[in-house]
């Protein structure tokens, strides 16, 4: 089943962790874009994105992550991506995005 996208923000010792669960596709990626761009612009610090619960992402979703990274870099910050499932890690490898983000 197509699982609804959920985006959770977690603040711990001043660092920001964003958990993305469900499916990021052309329909849901607009929501991710709004939330993520907003967080990157207001936080002005390194951000960790936890993808443990993410079971699908398409090129529009990957595009949003790249866009967020560009914004982060403008203020000298980085985006770390953690806990990618195997099927999604494969997408990062194929598109070369594994070299653009810091994948943990």
């Amino acid at each position, binding site marked *: 089943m197509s699982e609804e996208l959920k985006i959770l923000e977690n603040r711990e010792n001043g660092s920001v962790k964003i958990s993305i669960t469900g499916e990021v596709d052309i*329909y849901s990626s607009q929501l991710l874009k709004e939330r993520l761009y907003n967080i990157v612009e207001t936080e002005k610090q390194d951000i960790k994105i936890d993808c443990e619960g993410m079971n699908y992402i398409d090129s529009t979703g990957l595009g949003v992550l790249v866009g967020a990274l560009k914004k982060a870099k403008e203020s000298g910050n980085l985006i770390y991506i953690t806990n990618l499932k195997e*099927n999604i890690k494969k997408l990062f490898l*194929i598109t070369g995005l594994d070299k653009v983000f810091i994948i943990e």
Partner: protein
Amino acid sequence: MITNNEADTIEISLPFKAEYVSVARLTASAIANRIGFNIDEIEDVKVAVSEVCNKMVKYKSKTEEAYKIIFKITPQKLAITYDCEDKSLKCIFDNEEDKLAISLINAFMDYVEFCPENNSLFTMSKNI
């Protein structure tokens, strides 16, 4: 799992709307599962089908409500063709902004025709 030698055809017709790309994705998964693809291969088909649907939805048709995905199943392969009555839609992929989608489709399918000669909008297949 499919034992006969003829081709089976499944068609799905969907509105040009982002909210129904997930329906195409699940239908494609169900077909890939049924014809015996393993979990990784099912995932590959799902990704490729979604990426093409995304482009259909982005371009839309000015005259038609819906586009069609035709799944043709033979013992050798699953062939997937996109079509629409509106023949002004052509070569829906554009090398620049679609780089991510194109590299995913090329990686996951065995054969891809971006601008098919046969009057359809897009065609790709994966060997069984």
